């Protein structure tokens, strides 16, 4: 593309008052080589935009450097098809956060223009990725429970085709075992009508149903998945575009429970799941002799919220016990029903069911540590009531129901890390000795659900407790495998009402995915991005850093260890680009060379000018907006910093630091997201990887006789904007102590 660059400087919002615009225009003209430099008092207004459009049409401008507000605002106004647009953030990060009219402020603005020019110079318009094979828009649904059935129904309703695979002989999932359900509006209990959902799905022409079947193999990526489904000896192959994973849950194994809960000591101590089965098979009776129930106790948190057993709250067991208690009260009103609970957790409107149970006369005892004493058929529960401060004894119980929790099916199976270790043990000894970065492995269990042919493992990586989601608050349904969306109890413990919603939600995500992929666009979180990583394979050394580090397992590998990128699986974060020691991975509009040029374009004053320079590589998802917010609140910070946004800090290549320091830049600050269990990285572990890489750079720095203090890594959340000025000022102060970079002027 023949580039014709035009620079537009907006003087509105205080930019014109803080900066010498004329001087800035000169920089754009002379140093940035802009063919056209214009200023406007309100560039985002109708008149301003009309001017830009006019220049594109009449002057043949195809590269626009818009020096105005943050790229995080007005992005829809400054979007011009077929043009390269770069936004220079003169408002939030210069005019609003620096001293107006100051020499340093002016220098900062000028540097940002140079950086932008360097960026545009290295950018090419992205071309969408089109796989060779035809893209399928069909959606595979794994699991025929409430969530899976709903997903299939919704997919069909939206005009797409669905393939539903259920392991059991019949559709319906766990709900098949359930007689009564607790759902909206939670005023009472209702008959289970999963059968009508099963009928809807079975009759639907858009849905192909496999029961008693399993997925043997899943190959490919979004749009081009090839799924082998084994059913009664035969294997069928389907091409699908996206997958909804609603494989469900298993009840926590009661045999693992603390013996003081009495499981196994009397036939009259059962679990909530056994209660459901009992009701379905002829009603609630005393298990030992089929007698009527006069006294029943429910014990909540049987294993849940116990770090030794099931460390999390299963969220449905309270509602389930309420449902079962109400059932007993409705069938035998004279029965005494007790619920012994730690805390009653009835999310959402299920609170009404709690109230209903109270009205029915169910007695609630708050106790952290109840004890079941069983002698033959006679069962007693002793519970220290928190509110009374005394021990309550429930005698002559006909039935004790232990409310056990939900375990996702993905939490079963061997740890894939062990499988890999076994495989490696077979390989030659010296390969094991290879010097490798210690990248923490994802928790993948061989649970035999999807059997992905992915280099990083055959199933979805778990985040915590074996749940395969990637961020349950910010990004529901997302997993760490692109195009595969978790729904229902495999995603998080939930009741039927939530499972219906989940099925529909995940179906919508899957449809979004196939549509985006068919246009060559990225899905969440860089939805719509048309760039994708390209590998310059001639220089690849088969080091496997990219295949190891990709947070989404997007890159497979051939036998020789060459990476086999699967662009439709890619989220375009650039972690592979940051990981590659040979720097052979680049995007059309984001590359190692481009960032290198941007860093090199920063003007470094001579040592005697006493104007140090700090390059800030900031994650554009959290750190960059936090810097904007600091400006928005008119917080001022150090004038030596030059911020360069990163798609993800994980795309930080060590060469950037070398580039900066060899240019005479005094220090490099990396601003990434928080990582660990409560991570907030959009790409799961980008900032963590950047930090790990940093452990290597310090050695290099020491070898170059450069102080390792010159590079600092900080994590910030978007809400940490108030801490940013201090972080930046502190770093500047440290650098002052270290002294100027000796490479200045080289």
């Amino acid at each position: 593309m023949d580039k014709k660059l035009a620079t537009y400087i907006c003087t509105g919002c205080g930019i014109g008052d803080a900066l010498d615009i004329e001087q800035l225009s000169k920089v754009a003209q002379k140093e940035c080589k802009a063919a056209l430099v214009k200023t406007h008092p309100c560039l985002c207004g109708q008149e301003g935009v009309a001017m830009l459009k006019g220049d594109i049409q009449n002057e043949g401008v195809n590269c626009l450097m818009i020096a105005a507000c943050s790229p995080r605002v007005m992005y829809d106004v400054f979007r011009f098809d077929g043009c390269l647009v770069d936004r220079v953030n003169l408002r939030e990060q210069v005019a609003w956060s620096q001293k107006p009219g100051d020499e340093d402020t002016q220098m900062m603005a000028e540097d940002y223009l140079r950086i932008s020019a360097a960026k545009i110079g290295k950018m090419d318009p992205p071309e969408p990725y089109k796989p060779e094979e035809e893209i399928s828009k069909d959606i595979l649904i794994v699991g025929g429970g409430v969530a899976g059935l709903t997903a299939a129904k919704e997919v069909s309703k939206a005009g797409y085709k669905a393939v539903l695979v259920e392991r059991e002989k019949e559709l319906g999932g766990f709900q098949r075992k359930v007689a009564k359900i607790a759902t909206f509006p939670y005023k009472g209990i209702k008959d289970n009508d999963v059968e009508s959902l099963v009928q809807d799905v079975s009759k639907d022409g858009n849905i192909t149903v496999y029961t008693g079947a399993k997925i043997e193999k899943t190959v490919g990526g979004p749009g081009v998945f090839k799924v082998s489904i084994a059913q009664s000896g035969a294997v069928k192959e389907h091409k699908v575009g996206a997958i909804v994973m609603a494989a469900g849950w298993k009840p926590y194994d009661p045999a693992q429970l603390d013996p003081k809960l009495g499981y196994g000591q009397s036939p009259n101590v059962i679990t909530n799941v056994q209660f459901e089965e009992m009701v379905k098979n002829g009603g609630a009776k005393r298990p030992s002799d089929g007698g009527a129930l006069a006294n029943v106790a429910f014990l909540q948190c049987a294993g849940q919220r116990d770090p030794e057993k099931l460390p999390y709250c299963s969220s449905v067991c309270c509602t389930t016990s309420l449902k079962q208690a109400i059932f007993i009260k409705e069938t035998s009103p004279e029965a005494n029903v007790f619920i012994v609970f730690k805390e009653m957790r009835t999310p959402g409107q299920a609170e009404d069911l709690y109230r209903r149970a109270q009205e029915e006369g169910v007695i609630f005892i708050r106790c952290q540590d109840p004890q079941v004493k069983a002698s033959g058929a006679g069962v007693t529960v002793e519970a220290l009531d928190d509110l009374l401060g005394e021990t309550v004894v429930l005698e002559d119980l006909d039935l004790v129901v232990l409310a056990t929790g939900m375990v996702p099916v993905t939490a079963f199976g061997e740890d894939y890390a062990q499988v890999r270790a076994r495989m490696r043990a077979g390989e030659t000894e010296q390969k094991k000795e290879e010097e490798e970065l210690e990248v923490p492995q994802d928790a993948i269990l061989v649970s035999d659900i999807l059997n992905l042919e992915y280099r990083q493992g055959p199933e979805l990586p778990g985040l915590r407790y074996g749940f395969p989601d990637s961020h349950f608050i910010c990004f529901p349904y997302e997993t760490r495998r692109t195009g595969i969306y978790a729904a229902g109890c495999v995603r998080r413990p939930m009741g039927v009402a939530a499972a219906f919603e989940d099925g529909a939600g995940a179906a919508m995500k899957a449809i979004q995915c196939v549509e985006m992929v068919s246009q060559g666009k990225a899905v969440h979180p860089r939805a719509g991005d048309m760039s994708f990583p390209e590998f310059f394979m001639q220089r690849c050394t088969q080091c496997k850093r990219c295949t190891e580090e990709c947070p989404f397992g997007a890159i497979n590998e051939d036998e020789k260890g060459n990476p086999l990128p699967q662009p439709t699986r890619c989220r375009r974060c650039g972690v592979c680009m940051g990981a590659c020691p040979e720097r052979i991975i680049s995007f059309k509009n984001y590359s190692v060379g481009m960032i290198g040029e941007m860093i090199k374009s920063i003007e470094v004053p001579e040592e005697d000018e006493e104007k140090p320079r700090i390059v800030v590589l900031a994650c554009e998802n959290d750190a960059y907006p936090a810097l904007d917010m600091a400006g928005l609140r008119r917080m001022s910070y150090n004038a030596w910093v030059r911020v360069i946004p990163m798609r993800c800090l994980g795309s930080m290549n060590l060469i950037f630091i070398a580039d900066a320091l060899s240019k005479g830049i005094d220090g490099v600050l990396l601003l990434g997201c928080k990582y660990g269990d409560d991570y907030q990285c959009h790409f799961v572990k980008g900032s963590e990887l950047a930090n790990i890489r940093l452990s290597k750079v310090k050695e290099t720095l020491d070898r170059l006789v450069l102080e390792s203090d010159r590079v600092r890594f900080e994590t910030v959340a978007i809400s940490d904007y108030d801490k940013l000025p201090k972080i930046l000022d502190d770093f500047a102060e440290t650098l002052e102590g270290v002294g100027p970079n000796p490479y200045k002027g080289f």
Partner: protein
Amino acid sequence: MSIKVDPNLMKDLKHFGMKDGSKCFHCGNCTAVCPLSETGTPFPRKLVKYAQMGLKEKLLQSSEPWLCYYCGNCSDNCPRGADPGETMMVLRRYLTSQYDWTGFSRKFYTSEKFEIMAVIVTGLIVGVLMLLIHGEFDWQHASLEKAWPAHGMEIADLIMASILSFFLLTNVYRFIKFTMGDLLTKIPLRIYASQAKELVLHFLTQKRWAKCEDRTQWVIHLLMMTGYTTAFILVAVLLAGGLAVLGLTWEPLRFQRPFDPVLGRDIEYPLFHPIRLLGYYATIAVLIGATYALIGRFRKSKAPYKNSHGTDWMFLVLLELTVITGISVHILRLLDIPFATYAMYILHLMIAVPMLVLEVPFSKWSHLAYRPIAAYLKGVKEKYFAEVQGQTAEAPAAEPAQAEA
């Protein structure tokens, strides 16, 4: 110590008006907003828990229900709609029936049919007795003194008062025994004596009630209380001018006008005669109070009036009718219509007497004793514990076990 839950108590309490108590999930907002709840005697949440768990013994030992004046703050602030104020009211009804050893109270509370029958039967007995035992009916002039001489009525009053006191006092004794337990004899008499004036003060002023946010209830109650007490003194004590049986009378205080043989009719007091004025005050005060409460209960205007048990209606209706028939007797007598006066007088007593005999020892009205005594005993206990603590502070090793108590 372990506790056995009795799920049947809540079912039983339904007869006493319990509706929403089971909905309580023990957040404690009620106790937090209650201006009367104190650290030593927290309520209402604690009592709701006792009720939910069916802890009858603990309820019997609690005097807290009588320390609550039902301003309704708790019910208004309950996030659960569990109406803790009403639960306290229910517990007062229940406890009244528990203190009563005859079992009559329980029947009265739990069966509306029994309640109405009891009132009717007592009324009829009164009516029949009045028709059987009377003096001379003067058909020329309305003379109550001739028909039912004050001296005779006074004897009847005394009989009624002794029966009533016997039942009330025995019940009160049981109430004290339940709530005080071992402390009853452990606390030295001098502490009881030193707090005695509090008992009178609480009886006369219900001063705790003044701490409630809604003071209207307190004022209305004071009107009714002072009105009725005045009426009671006039009718029961001063009917014949004192204790005529013992010859202790003072004519000017005599409530029932003496018959003047010269005039041939009962003497009328001048309009501004203190006794007449007191009578008017009593009438008006009770009329205002009872009417306010009746309208409130009809309209369910505020929390304390939202739920009305049969006994609440019975009490107010009898009170209102007593006042109305009382006014009617007064007017008819002034108009000098003999037959109507006598008839109305019989009717008046047919209403007033059952109210006293049934309500005071066995039902709602017994609170006139339980409330001031509960407040008084609370003071006694606090003083006692303060002393015990003071002693152990001086001699820490002396008797730690006692401090525990």
